């Protein structure tokens, strides 16, 4: 790979990068990876979201944890690097249900709730979602590249794809 800036994004974490850069997050399960791309400036941003909403939480000290607060912060961090909100497009990956459990309680359906809440927040911000690979019952590792905003998705037993 050429000499680009690779940054790892942990769970409940978010990172941004100028071009040339690559942001990656490993082993996404029910968490959702929200990948934003400024199509003009080639600035990228990636959030690894754990929970749908900060509103029901008792502790909101880490705003990268929640879909509603993380996406807003991600957009602001990208704007600080020179991105414009009008040029942003979004891609989503993750939100799986790793364990089936018959009594699908709230916590077990967290993946789909994370996806739904991320979409709501993106709609409110007026950022179009141009691709997604969400749901299922398997983990994903994702890589977001600044040269063209492609999102590479790797799995175990469910192939590799690019969206």
């Amino acid at each position, binding site marked *: 790979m050429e000499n680009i800036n690779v940054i790892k994004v*942990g*769970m*409940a*974490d978010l990172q941004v990068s100028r071009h040339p850069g690559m942001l990656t997050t*490993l*082993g*996404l*399960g*029910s*968490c959702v990876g929200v990948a934003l791309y400024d199509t003009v400036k080639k600035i990228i941003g990636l959030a690894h979201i*754990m*929970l749908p909403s900060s509103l*029901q*939480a*008792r*502790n909101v*000290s*880490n705003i990268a*944890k929640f879909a509603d607060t993380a996406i807003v912060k991600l957009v602001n961090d990208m704007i600080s690097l020179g991105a414009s909100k009008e040029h942003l497009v979004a891609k989503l990956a993750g939100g*799986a249900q*790793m*364990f*089936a*459990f*018959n009594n699908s309680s709230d*916590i077990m359906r*967290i993946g789909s709730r994370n996806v739904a809440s991320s979409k709501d927040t993106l709609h409110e911000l007026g950022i179009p979602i141009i691709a997604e690979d969400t749901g299922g*019952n*398997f*983990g*994903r*590792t994702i890589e977001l590249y600044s040269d063209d905003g492609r999102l590479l998705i*790797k799995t*175990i*037993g469910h192939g590799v794809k690019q969206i």
Partner: protein
Amino acid sequence: MSISINDLNSMHIDVLKEIGNIGAGNAATALAKMLNKRIDMEVPKVKILEFKDVNEILGGAEILVVGILLRITGDLSGYIMFILEYNAAHLLVNILMGKPSSDLNEFSELEASALKEIGNILAGSYISALSSLTNLKISPSVPDMAVDMAGAILSVPAIEFGKVGDTVLYIETEFSEGSAKVIGDFFLIPNVESYDVLLKALGVIN
């Protein structure tokens, strides 16, 4: 007033380790009986991790593992999780089902259900030791299994902690066969509200 992760002192941590020791010890004995092999276990570790570090605790977020998860309810709530190295999981079912140990393809439905049953028996022995030690009523759910990246599996019990804080606590015990081959890790992951219950039941706090 309930104890949060940040309030746990070194004595509390030692008590949680001892709980892991007794529970996992009982589970190791059950596993040894099932396999008719010697099973060793490491001294349990209490890991308090920030979420960003959770994915890496088994040496890499993308390692292929078999995860068997049970929810526990009753006086204590939380999860019990048994993580098996992928090859070790195959070895386990092959020994139990009396098959040659060369087949490393996907698990058949029968093999998967045998693995879940192993999880069930081990979690049952862990819980019964814990329960007789503390006099607490603890019931496990039906086990469920996932074969996937370690990070994706480990994040499932962590998510519940996200609502109340920025760290998760795992009581981890590593199992190996003989003294060489690591089989997997046993995790007890009590919910935040359960530290109080556990420490009170053992007379460590009032």
